[in-house]
């Protein structure tokens, strides 16, 4: 069995921990089948976000999705999260195994 990877999009969002649940719901609505969430702290335009009180911490959320789903997520994040939360997003091209999962 040879492992042939399929092209897919990786969308990474870093935002306030408070926005975690909203973000996951939003992405599910856009068609994401899963998500990986890691703790993070950060510095950015809205100052330092140290991780010691959860209210101030960031989360780093990754979605591996099809290009169409990625486009939908980008649009929703731009509309619903950017105006309300300290948040950044980037997107890149990746290859996955088991395309059917995404």
């Amino acid at each position, binding site marked *: 069995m040879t492992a042939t990877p399929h092209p897919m999009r990786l969308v990474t969002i870093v935002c*306030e921990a*408070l926005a975690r649940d909203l973000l996951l719901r*939003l992405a599910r609505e856009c068609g994401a089948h899963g998500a990986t969430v890691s*703790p993070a702290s950060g510095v950015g335009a809205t*100052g330092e976000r*140290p991780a*010691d*009180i*959860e209210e101030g911490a960031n989360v780093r959320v990754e979605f591996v999705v099809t290009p169409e789903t990625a486009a939908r997520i980008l649009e929703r994040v731009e509309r*619903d999260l950017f105006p309300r939360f300290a948040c950044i997003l980037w997107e890149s091209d990746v290859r996955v195994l088991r395309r059917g999962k995404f």
Partner: protein
Amino acid sequence: MDLLEAIRHNLLSPAPLFFALGLLAAAAKSDLKLPEALYSSLTIYLLAAIGFKGGAAIQEAGLGVVWLPVLVAAVLSAAIPLWTYPVLRFLGRFPASDAASIAAHYGSVSAVTFTVATGFLANTSVPYEGYSSALLAIMESPAILVGVLLGKMTEGPGNPGPGSSLREVLREALLGKSVVLLVGALLIGFLCGKSGLEKVGGFFVAPFQGVLALFLLELGLVAGRRLRDLRRAGPFLIAFGVLIPVVHGAVGVAIGLTIGLSPGGATLLGTLCASASYIAAPAAMRLALPDANPTLSLAASLAITFPFNVSLGIPLYHEMAMRWSTP
């Protein structure tokens, strides 16, 4: 013991000194910091312990005694934002959402300030109603709800986005972790009573004051990092953060004495009115009023009002309670 003596006595006890150590360490940019998990764990411990002890005290006192103070406290918490909001909006010239958010913080309460006050009373051998932490538990949420309503009323129409619906705010105000823990532990304490408290006293009672001291070290570190934000906040907010607690403290003490609380109990109600939330309110406001700047409210409550209350405020409210209670 006169006021100055009481202040000196209060300042030279572990909790405020550990807070000062945290402030200094943050100011000196030391790399001292507590792990995030310790911060949350201490919060959980303190809320569970406060609730449990309060519940056991309610059972001892009987619900017949407790209902009036609890009702009055709930009304006070809901009422405070009603006058704090116009002060901020028209005197302080804050935008509507910021005024509403800050008003909610000051109507809600700080469990840690409350606990420092009970420690102060214990050290000066002033008795107080054991069920007072029921007042703490009831005062968390009403102000948050009123604050959100104030903010929403003035907000223009437009896409509210997910999470800003009133239902979600209600959920956050009533099922937020601090409320659930405090009220849940209160109920458990009430059901278990004194015998239950004895079983778990080695954990929830004996180490309590020391845990509080450690927690204040962390709060000092957090507040110290917030000090920078204060400059942006401007002199009005700084004055507000010192003066409004004195007003609310006086109101709380007076009403407490009126409804028949002991001077110790009235001191605690005054402290609760004077204190500002920095756990429940920030999270709820961030979700409900996203336009409000969280830096302003957190800097005011954590870096001004909290240190003021634990150093000077509490002895002051106690002094008021003593003077106004002697006929």
